[in-house]
């Protein structure tokens, strides 16, 4: 049922599409940089964006790299330098970060979904009015708006999935010409992109493959087409829908791996060969390092807590400010921090308090549980010290510093007792990598600890290290492990510096082929298990349908301004209703056709079936798999499935109107139809 007056109609269509697109852009892009704070999962994706900016290798088991790449590209355009610690939701962005550009690409994708839905409905061979309805439903779905406006990936996924289906159907509907294969390639590419953004895209891809193979099967059955032509067409489809996506998928990894060439927090997950291929990587491997830590050992100490990021005990030639912003005073001694990147300033030397030497004697004297040691910073030769001065960010705890004698009656307190907390499982002597060590301050019996709070600008946004009484903290943040380790040989400071700068041992075979890297990364992504944490806003799939759950994305601490992810109850209800209605109708039609009653002409029937395959099928494949998943689920996981339902509702309404109510007078009808769609959308 098309609108009347062909010429006017065409003009109108363009305008409608344009208008809808503009509205979509307006709803998704206006005031994009508000709130100027980290919103919900931005805290999660942000850390990867930072790592991209720093070119540091990471592994994220939540999905393939394309999604992160897109976000990182946005950040790159905005000139983001990666120097922001993403540690909590609600943290304010500094003015140096261009929030707008961080959020731009997802928002654009979210906006483009609206015209795509419009076009997709047309390709499903429904009228412009239905298309408008679908577009409006999507436009006014507040959950989609919320999800699109932040640095999140769902809108990108939805965009690519819709694009894949649209271009496939455009291919299918265009009469044969070489040009139509352009659409097919586009479809294959969007499939690859969808899978590359989130693994959930696989299910939509499989659905598209299913639809395509059904069409191909009919083509094979078409006796009017020559064998050769069938063969050629089949091969083309296979290339465009199977080969191209696979190649592109691998290509995302190629980009990912060639961008990230520095070693980083996830190195230890990878094989030695892989680590060797990363800049500054290999050295942390046990192989070739002495196992037992001895007096005179040069070590890097890594905090066992991986929250917010893994980091190493660090010091540098900068002192604590004499007064903090809030007026409290400090010791003004050298800063000791925890630094999330490899650095020559992470090296410490273990010294026997009774002797002067900083080299390992022969035979080496291993350090054991209960021994008292001093830690000397390799580059600055300051002693690790703690005293009864409030720490910069956690005033209840003691400050830790590199001791500088200012002659202000602040004596050195630089003795630390080695407490190996896993000595039952391992051994009494301190071993590289294996031993979890607590450093207990001898004078105050406080324990060296990484708090996870980042220091202000004077501390270069590195993480705070304090000495804290034992009972208050979570246990893993108290433990430190020796990661890189070698026996020191140079007594002179200059030589030692040179020694510290040199890699711990000679690189073996830096070359590892891209394919080996790709396979390893892919395998690790699929097998690395994140510990299952129950989240305050997690929900179960059944709660999504009835929208019994919402997520608070952001809450301003003082003004109480809030952002919530929650669906539009009206469109949600319409979606559920149309899902039921379609199934009911389909069952009735099927049974009646089987008994020989053809309620619908064949063309309409195939249109109806196609609608079901794409929309209901899309909903099923994007919803049912969640029941089998054991990971933490959130309401936003339902959004792709919901889009399919929004596509279904107006089309089904049109179908009902044209084919079930055909005995009613046409004029009144167009009217009611329009009304229905418009009222539903609003």
């Amino acid at each position: 049922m098309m609108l009347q007056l062909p010429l006017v109609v065409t003009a109108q269509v363009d305008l409608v599409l344009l208008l809808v697109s503009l509205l979509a852009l307006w709803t998704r892009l206006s005031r994009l940089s508000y709130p100027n704070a980290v919103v919900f999962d931005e805290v999660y994706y942000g850390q990867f964006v930072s790592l991209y900016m720093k070119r540091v290798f990471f592994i994220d088991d939540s999905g393939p790299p394309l999604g992160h790449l897109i976000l990182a590209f946005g950040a790159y355009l905005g000139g983001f330098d990666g120097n922001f610690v993403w540690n909590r939701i609600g943290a304010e962005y500094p003015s140096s970060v261009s929030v707008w550009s961080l959020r731009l690409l997802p928002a654009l994708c979210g906006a483009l979904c609206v015209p795509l839905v419009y076009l997709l409905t047309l390709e499903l061979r429904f009228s412009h009015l239905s298309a408008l309805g679908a577009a409006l439903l999507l436009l006014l779905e507040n959950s989609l708006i919320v999800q699109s406006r932040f640095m999140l990936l769902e809108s990108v996924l939805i965009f690519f999935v819709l694009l894949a289906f649209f271009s496939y159907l455009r291919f299918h509907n265009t009469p044969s010409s070489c040009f139509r294969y352009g659409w097919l390639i586009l479809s294959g590419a969007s499939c690859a992109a969808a899978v590359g953004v989130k693994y959930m895209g696989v299910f939509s891809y499989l659905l598209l493959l299913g639809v395509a193979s059904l069409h191909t099967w009919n083509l094979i059955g078409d006796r009017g087409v020559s064998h050769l032509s069938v063969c050629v067409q089949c091969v083309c489809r296979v290339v465009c829908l199977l080969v191209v996506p696979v190649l592109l998928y691998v290509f995302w990894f190629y980009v990912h791996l060639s961008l990230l060439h520095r070693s980083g927090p996830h190195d230890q997950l990878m094989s030695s060969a892989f680590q060797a291929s990363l800049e500054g990587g290999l050295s942390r491997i046990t192989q070739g390092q002495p196992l037992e830590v001895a007096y005179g050992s040069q070590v890097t100490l890594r905090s066992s807590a991986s929250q917010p990021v893994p980091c190493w005990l660090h010091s540098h030639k900068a002192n604590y400010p004499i007064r903090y912003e809030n007026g409290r005073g400090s010791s003004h001694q050298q800063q000791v921090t925890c630094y999330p990147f490899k650095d020559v300033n992470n090296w410490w030397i273990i010294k026997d308090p009774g002797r002067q030497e900083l080299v390992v004697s022969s035979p080496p004297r291993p350090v054991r549980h209960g021994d008292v040691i001093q830690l000397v910073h390799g580059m600055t030769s300051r002693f690790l010290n703690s005293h009864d001065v409030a720490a910069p960010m956690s005033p209840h705890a003691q400050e830790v510093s590199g001791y500088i004698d200012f002659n202000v009656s602040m004596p050195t307190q630089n003795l630390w007792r080695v407490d190996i907390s896993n000595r039952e499982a391992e051994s009494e002597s301190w071993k590289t990598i294996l031993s979890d060590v607590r450093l207990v301050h001898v004078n105050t019996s406080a324990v060296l600890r990484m708090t996870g709070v980042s220091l202000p600008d004077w501390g270069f946004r590195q993480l705070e290290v304090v000495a804290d009484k034992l009972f208050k903290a979570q246990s893993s943040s108290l433990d430190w492990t020796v990661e890189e380790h070698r026996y020191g040989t140079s007594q002179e400071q200059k030589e030692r510096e040179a020694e510290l700068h040199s890699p711990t041992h000679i690189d073996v075979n830096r070359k590892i082929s891209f394919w080996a890297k790709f396979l390893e990364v892919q395998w690790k992504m699929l097998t690395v298990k994140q510990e299952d944490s129950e989240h305050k806003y997690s929900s179960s799939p059944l709660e999504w349908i009835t929208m019994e759950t919402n997520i608070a994305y952001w809450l301003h601490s003082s003004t109480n301004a809030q952002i919530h992810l929650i669906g539009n109850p009206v469109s949600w209800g319409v979606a559920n209703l149309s899902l039921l209605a379609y199934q009911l109708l389909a069952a009735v039609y099927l049974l009646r056709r089987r008994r020989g009653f053809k309620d619908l002409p064949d063309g309409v029937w195939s249109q109806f079936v196609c609608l079901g395959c794409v929309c209901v099928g899309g909903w099923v494949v994007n919803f049912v798999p969640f029941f089998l998943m054991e990971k933490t689920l959130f309401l936003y996981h339902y959004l792709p499935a919901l889009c399919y339902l929004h596509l279904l509702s107006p089309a089904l309404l049109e179908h009902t109107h044209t084919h079930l109510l055909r005995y009613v007078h046409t004029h009144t009808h167009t009217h009611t139809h329009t009304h229905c769609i418009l009222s539903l959308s609003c």
Partner: protein
Amino acid sequence: MAKEECISQRNKTAGDTSALRNRKVFPSSEKTPSSPLSKGTHSQTAGHHSEDDAQSSNGTSAQCSTRGNNSEEPPSRVLLMLVVGLSFSTRLYKIADPPHVCWDETHFGKMGSYYINRTFFFDVHPPLGKMLIGLAGYMTGYDGTFPFVKPGDKYEHHNYWGMRGFCAVLGSCLPVFAYLIVLELSQSHTAALITATLLIFDTGSITISQYILLDPILMFFIMAAVLSMVKFNQQRYRPFSATWWLWLVLTGVSLAGALGVKFVGLFVILLVGLNTVWDLWRLLGDLSLSLVDITKHLLARVVGLILLPLLLYITIFAIHFVVLNKSGPGDGFFSSAFQSRLIGNNLHNASMPEYLAYGSTITVKNLRIAGGYLHSHWHLYPEGVGAKQQQVTAYLHKDYNNLWLVQRHGENESQSGTPDLVRHGDIIRLEHKETTRNLHTHLHEAPLTKKHFQVTGYGINGTGDINDLWQVEVCGGQKGDLVKVLRSKVRFLHRATGCVLYSSGKTLPKWGWEQVEVTCSPYLKETPSSQWNIEDHINPKLPNISLSVLKPHFLEILLESHIVMIRGNSGLKPKDNEMNSKPWHWPINYQGLRFSGVNDTDYRVYLLGNPVVWWINLASLGLYVIMVAVASVALQRGFSLGQKRIEDSHVLMREGGQLFLGWLLHYAPFYTMGRVLYYHHYFPAMLFNSMLTGITLDVLLKSADLLLRRPYSDWLQRVGLMVLLFSVLYSFYLFHPLSYGMTGPLAHEAGSAMAGLKWMDSWEF
């Protein structure tokens, strides 16, 4: 055998007319019931198709009857007798060896004994299999006194061979059933023979049939269900006849049997269900049948395949509950009401003080189904899990660590002789009797349910702090109501934080001895998880009153035992140190199971499929997929194929498809299961795979004439068959010690009987 699968798609384009034509053509074809199928017009135009379609119903019935004659021919009888003879002799040979408990016999033999002793127990599987084992033991003079403590225990004078023999007899039926199924499906003796040979000479199938296990019983019912389903399908042109009903009912009975042995039976129910739906869909499309007829068909199937099995299944449980009326090791898994049925249980005709009083020793049981007793023990929560205080858990077994003392808040015992009774709204302290710690909670997150608070044991000898105080609340009660033992649903509200004592049902990790987590939930909704009842109540100062506890209704028991079973099943998580078998191991015969013996001095039995058989099966799965793809494309493109080849393709696609579906249904779901898996779970799928192999290889051999001309192709066919059968036989000769027992050095040593046969490093013999 309708051709309509391939046609139905084309019908869509043919539209209304073809349907009309169907209707018109039909009566005429009815007059020629024996219209020869060999007229060979399965062919190119839509018109022809619709005719075929209409005739199919009668055409095939004729075909069936002629084929039916076929199977009466002498060679078939001889072959069948041969299969039966070989099958029974391979399964019953050395049935009594080894004369000690092998592998899971320790469970199922023990459970069989429980039936003979009428002792209640708990198992994750439905009861039929163990009931039959018990019955077989009873009939053959086993008295149920052997304890079945652990694998390797000698049976000595006990009559164990009856139970093994029973399983072996059922196991011997499998190749016979497979033979009959394949014969019925493909009408080819070759295919049936291949299948039977594969199964008879498969060491794995032999081993698993020879011991007191549920698997042979389960597979017997699965195969019986498939056989009767196939037979029933053959009867489709004589609906509502006596044989039609017979096979329908037999299918239903077998389904109930399969489900009654293990929940894996659900897969075969699914298979039969899909088949039935397909069959009904076909009937619905048969426009010669009125809607009344179709309704009759539908109802017949509902009765035969749903109601009857359900009734039988429930009957099995009824017998189970009636037979097992004595208290036993499984009591603690069930609710207090359930336990009161069991003779010997302390709740059976219980007598105890009726109302909860201060100073009493009690056990507290969670009200959720399969909820445990409130429990504590001398172990602390580990580092990093809340506060490092004593663990409080829920425990399913009866244990002295389940005992708690009810203490008054503040002042000690009232001095008078009779203790005061606890009332709704009272504030109490629960002191763990063994460790004298108080039930305690505080604002630390619980170990697994992070939104809840951790519950611990705190203090010593009754002195603790404010966080040890709990308010007793009787559900539906008012202030001042007394707490009835067993019958009151009680909630314990924490005084300081307002949370409610809760059992989440999640199993704690190893540090918590895999007991169930107990938390304090800040959500005060009344759910069974937060409700408890007082089960034991000991107070010498109060008179005991005999309580006639409400006997639970049968359906309640049924529901409860199912939930307990399902919980138990999903609770069978793989242990860290245990070797875990993965589903992908199975078809490639990656690793078997040790049934008996480890060292070279032991009598060793190793459950491992005959690798030649299994790898042939695996290869023909691949072959099958390729052949179906080729055949269906050829048909879809309308290549002119010979009549015989078209028939073969249809056998391959339709009957083979059923078997392939069966394989898939019995294999694929294991990938989604979280519970611990074992190699023997693959055996039902392996049966389907072997049947599929029979059909696939038969069609492959028949297609030899694509390569060679007539007489040579026949030779090739025969030679191929001979090679296949002999290779299976020879491999059986090589590997038979796996089933019939090996002694002496292990395979990797030179002097072993199995030397050189350890083809994969993962095999452990």
